[in-house]
């Protein structure tokens, strides 16, 4: 059985009458790394809130259908029980910061403290998590006097340290420098290899292609295509719905129209695929 399962989920925010999610069916296996791509207002964040229980426990509104994680039913569970299994990194890091802590270290320790984790274990876990995301040198800083990207890394680390069974991340690298963003993808990939289920909304197509096991693309509250990164990220449905594609894909498509890129070579999404594809085209004649 899938670890995360949504069956015919439709959700409408209390202040609107247009559903933000429409008849979503989705299964995610334990240890899988699922990426969500989509244009603005497609419903990526709403889907993240639903899987992590903020819908319906924080945002009320109208939820139809069923959401299950590890055999538990969302509507029958309390939010504080649910968050033990599912951790959410918010799109806006400001929403993550507790507002009650003086240092980055305390901020990251906050969740473990609430769980009553032993002090020695807590310190060890916080230090390890900060090392993984590369923010050890910020430990004694105030969580408010940080750069945008540093703040985003703190928000990410404060959930990562909880080692949730299901790790939901809503555009966690949007403010990170390119190498920092790639490092975060690497850390998250390691977690999924270790059995943690990862669900991540993201615009960085190149890294999605490199790291995700499976991708869904959303538009107007629906999943419009689902499959392997290569299959989804080169689909013509993406540009048709205003969703970005990688520069490699775009260049190969243009090259194809000029007969410079083989019709039979799959369109590239990653650098390696692009190197292979474009050298192949070159050697043909």
């Amino acid at each position, binding site marked *: 059985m899938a670890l995360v399962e949504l069956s015919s989920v439709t959700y409408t925010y209390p202040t609107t009458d247009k559903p933000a999610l429409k008849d979503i069916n989705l299964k995610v296996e334990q240890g899988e790394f699922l990426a969500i791509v*989509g*244009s*603005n*207002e497609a419903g990526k964040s709403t889907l993240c809130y639903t899987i992590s229980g903020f819908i319906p426990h924080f945002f009320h509104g109208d939820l139809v259908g069923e959401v299950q994680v590890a055999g538990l039913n969302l509507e029958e569970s309390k939010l504080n029980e649910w968050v033990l299994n599912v951790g959410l990194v918010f*799109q*806006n890091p*400001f929403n993550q910061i507790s507002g009650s802590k003086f240092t980055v270290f305390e901020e990251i320790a906050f969740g473990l403290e609430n769980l009553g984790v032993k002090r020695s274990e807590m310190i060890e876990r916080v230090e390890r998590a900060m090392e993984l995301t590369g923010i050890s040198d910020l430990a004694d*800083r*105030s969580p408010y*006097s*940080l*750069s*945008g*990207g*540093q703040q985003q*890394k703190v928000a990410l680390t404060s959930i990562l340290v909880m080692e949730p069974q299901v790790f939901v991340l809503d*555009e966690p690298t*949007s*403010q*990170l*420098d*390119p*190498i*920092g*963003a*790639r490092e975060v993808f690497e850390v998250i990939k390691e977690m999924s290899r270790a059995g943690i289920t990862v669900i991540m909304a993201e*615009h960085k197509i*190149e890294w999605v292609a490199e790291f995700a096991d499976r991708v869904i693309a959303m538009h107007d509250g629906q999943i419009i295509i689902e499959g392997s990164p290569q299959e989804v990220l080169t689909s013509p449905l993406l*540009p048709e719905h*205003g*969703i*970005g*594609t*990688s*520069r*490699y894909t*775009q*260049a190969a498509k*243009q*090259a194809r129209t*000029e007969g*410079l890129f083989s019709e039979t070579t799959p369109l590239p999404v990653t*650098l390696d695929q*692009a*190197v292979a594809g*474009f*050298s192949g*085209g*070159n*050697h043909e*004649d």
Partner: protein
Amino acid sequence: MKIEINNLHFTYPGEIIALSGINLSIESGEKVAIVGQNGSGKTTLVKHFNGLLLPTNGTIRIGDWDTKDHSVAELASRVGYVFQNPDEQLFNSDVKSELGFGPRNLGYDDDRTEELVEDAIELTGLDNYRDTNPYDLSPTWRKMVALGSIIALDSPIVVFDEPTTGQDAQSVEVIARIADELHSRGKTLITISHDIDFCAENFERIIAMSEGEILLDGSVLEVIAQEESLATTFVDPPQLTRLGKELGFDQTVNDQASFLGAYRLSHEQN
């Protein structure tokens, strides 16, 4: 209007050194992207342009003004700064008032204000949201409001701090067109961004920062060719630049047109 920075140092309270010795000049009408590592001082640097921060040491001049002699309100007539986080910037209860706030504060009359607001609405595509409270908008639209409210200042220097964060392909395209339009009006455009592909495709000059200093400063092609130095600022070259290099192109490419141009050439040679 020229920006001239001499030996700028800035330290935040708590002995946090953010800038250590910046020398930089930006001419009127330039189109500059600033890239670099998280915490390297990009936001801190540009907050000096409109006087939000004053140097701990060194000087910064905007045209003939030393920023330390002028208030933020005065400097707004010369430099418009769009915050990295729109929530730090927006406080009016509807989009139109938000966009009109700046011009009114600069002392423009109702007609001129109206004109500037309409221009900003058109450029940002906010037409459907005139009467909406910015806080009821999605984060990505809030960013557009923040952008619009600075465009409406009509200042000769415009600074965007990570305008493309969280924006989808279509909105990134809108932002690129806004940048083009402001540039064609003769404004100096400075953008901070982590999206090196966007920078390489839409700007002329790139400044790369690391740990409070400028490590690289030059034309787009000069800077993106230096893979190793760029890496020390935690930036990778653009996707097509990396691909061109892997394919053994002689010249550095920065966008699809130059990539395909070089590819055709290598194709013909084979």
